[in-house]
């Protein structure tokens, strides 16, 4: 395969790449506020049943993704208890749609973003938060003016991790969102589909390379931003 052939993407391939980026973007965007909220509670509060919530959040990390996808299908499928309610009340179908791809990514990457942000918040000295409150600033504003800026490198790397995990998501997506070209066929799914078809080795290799390059760029950007944040914060 020549270099030119390697770079000649067809529409379906470009569609899969763009869709992957779009799913990953929405996954990171929607996860972030929930993860911030949950990570803060986990880092700063102690309450009855905390370990149960902790285990639930971390479950997708150890469950086979296909199981996560299946459970999501049970809940959000047209016959599932949430899916049924959403369809009858708002006429919304989640399963086997773009939203399902985003939702599957969110659930699978959530433990990663929560863990990263939680560790970052735990590193922020609670004494500084007390100092802020004594100066007349309430808990919520203290969170955004002191805790978030000081935990920012961890928050960024957590969000990027969620983005990157979403780019690589396969099992839960194919089970819950299906493999519909242009709608739910993300990059890993497109690679898988092309692998099944004889004669598509070129396409497969192209997409594999794109996948490697994209993941590398995302992680490099994350690393660079975290370094910059740390340098700017204290100097």
């Amino acid at each position, binding site marked *: 395969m020549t270099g030119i052939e390697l770079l000649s993407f067809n529409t379906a391939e470009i569609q899969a790449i763009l869709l992957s980026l779009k799913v990953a973007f929405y996954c990171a965007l929607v996860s972030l506020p929930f993860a911030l909220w949950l990570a803060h509670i986990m880092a700063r509060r102690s309450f009855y049943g905390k370990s149960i919530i902790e285990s639930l959040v971390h479950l997708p990390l150890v469950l086979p993704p296909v199981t996560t996808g299946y459970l999501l299908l049970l809940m959000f499928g047209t016959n599932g208890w949430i899916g049924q309610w959403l369809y009858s009340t708002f006429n919304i179908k989640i399963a086997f749609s773009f939203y399902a791809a985003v939702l599957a990514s969110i659930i699978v990457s959530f433990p990663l973003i929560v863990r990263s942000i939680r560790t970052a918040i735990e590193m922020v000295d609670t*004494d500084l938060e007390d*100092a802020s*409150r*004594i*100066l*007349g*600033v*309430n808990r919520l504003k203290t969170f955004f003016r002191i805790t978030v800026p000081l935990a920012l490198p961890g928050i960024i790397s957590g969000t990027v991790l969620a983005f990157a995990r979403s780019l690589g998501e396969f099992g839960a997506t194919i089970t819950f969102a299906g493999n519909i070209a242009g709608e739910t066929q993300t990059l890993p799914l497109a690679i898988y589909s092309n692998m099944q078809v004889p004669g598509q080795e070129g396409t497969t290799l192209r997409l594999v390379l794109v996948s490697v390059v994209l993941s590398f760029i995302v992680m490099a950007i994350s690393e660079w931003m975290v370094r910059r944040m740390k340098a700017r914060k*204290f*100097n």
Partner: protein
Amino acid sequence: MVETKFKLKQGNFNFAINEKFDAGITGIYGPSGAGKTSLLKAISGLIKPQEGVININGNEVFNAENNTNIPVEKRRIGYVFQEGRLFPHLSIEQNLNYGFNKHSPKQLSFDAVVDLLNLRSLLKRKPSAISGGERQRTALGRALLSSPDILLLDEPFSAVDIHLRSQIIPFLLKIHKSIDIPILVVSHDLPDLLKLSSRLCLINNGHCIGHDDYHELLKKETSLKLFASDAIMNAITMTVKAIDPAKGLTILSNNGDESDVRVKCEKSKLTYGIGEELKLFISSDDIALSEKKVEGITIQNQLQGNITDIIKRESTSLCIVDVGFKLVVEITAESQKRMNIEVGSLVWCLFKSVAIDVAG
């Protein structure tokens, strides 16, 4: 005024207090672990007592009986922590402005605080780029700009090395002159506290064992035991009467010519104005007693007075001598016996000009 009457239990530690603190500086003195910081934390709302009431300027901020517990951010407290606790991601200017509330009445403007604490040249820097003393001054400025009803300082000197302390103390005295609010300063260093105020509240084993003027506290056995670990200091306020740059002396007066005190100062400090009030510190064991005025001696300060009290310590005696103001003089029990020193004896107190330390 701050009224505290509460009981606090934290694990095995019990703390109980029933004291009022007026405007002006009160030193909270006691050994480590006595409960000094617990008192400040309870006033500020960082910890919640199990019983009792806390009033700040007539506002009930805590009352266990009717479940009143005003949140920390609404108590209008200025708190300077031991380690400063500046926000590392903000500049000195942003730190100072952090608690600045446009709507609350101001006792001091931003510019007044910056000038008072000599912070102008640091405003654009980050906390990591300034010294320990400067950080502590910034923390003080930040607390002042939040327009507090009360200022709490928790070991403000301990994070600062010994020669930088002298940079903090004059600033605290200036603040005290600029605003009329209660200022509670916690420290386990008695000489430092006395440089700020002679009004002390003594805390030991979770209780207040005395709250009075330093000289009064010296008369009580319980408080004297607490002071035992430190050198007993004299803290006297005097007015500058004359300056003699040629001899490097500042002549201070308390009342009348009889009790003039000559202080040897470094050249840089010979800039005091006539009439300026200064606080002098002299250790009780740097003063000698004599039956007569001594001629032909290098000691320049010789003040005559009556002994009003004698407090026995292990092998020494503390004599309180009224020389127009009260001086504590530590002599050995043997000297006291030999010279037959009793309450009512007329003595001369001798101390060298170089033994005096000046603040303010």
